[in-house]
């Protein structure tokens, strides 16, 4: 495995050029953007929970009014027999 390693070593040396200068204020800008990201995620999460609770409440109200588990009163009378 020495041959591929030697080739990789050459390419690695080719890649290890001089590093570009880091712009000033990178950490401050990234932290500000990260804070915005956290805030946006928090808002989205709150909206999601609010929608979930609203849907659950609406379903409970509808179920208590409509009572879909009860059989509706029969509208068909049994056939007349034996008179």
């Amino acid at each position: 495995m020495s041959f591929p390693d030697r080739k990789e070593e050459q390419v690695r040396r080719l890649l290890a050029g001089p590093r570009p200068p880091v712009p000033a204020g990178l950490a401050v800008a990234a932290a500000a953007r990260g804070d915005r990201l956290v805030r946006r995620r928090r808002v989205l999460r709150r909206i999601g929970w609010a929608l979930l609770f609203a849907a659950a409440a609406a379903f409970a109200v509808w179920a208590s009014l409509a009572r879909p588990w009860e059989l509706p009163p029969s509208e068909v009378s049994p056939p007349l027999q034996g008179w």
Partner: protein
Amino acid sequence: MSPVDRRSGPWAEFEAFVAGAAGRLLHVAVLLTAEPGTGAGDAVGGGVGGGTGSGSGAGSGCPGARRLLAGALARTYADWRRVRGDDPYDHTRRELCAAYARTARRYRGGPGVLARLAPQERLALVLCVHEGVPEEVAAAQLGLPVDRMRALTARAVAAMRPEREAA
């Protein structure tokens, strides 16, 4: 040590992390986007015939790489609580590579060292050869089979070799 400011905890840790790792991460980003960076990338290759001799001074040659790095660092800071116990550098590099993979078509061509390679080949070369990430880990990170990862790396190394020999 720096004086404790009003946002001491995570902010101070994050600032120390950026101070230590930003140079290496920006280098990774510049390699991926194949932007001029310091402008010395062509000088390393020995001035290959046909290469553009854009020898601008050290400065603003890599807006795309900076944008990628800024986004990755912002995500790292947003997840800092979770990332801190893990490896922040690894997390940021992962975000950086994912962001590059999403927007790779913007960075086709360019004067950088890896300009001839396809996006996946650039990722394979930078992760496995330059950064020394194990092939299995890199393959899992990019969502590729290990065999494909190995083939990509080998092809990228082979494609980078002729320039080296011609120089």
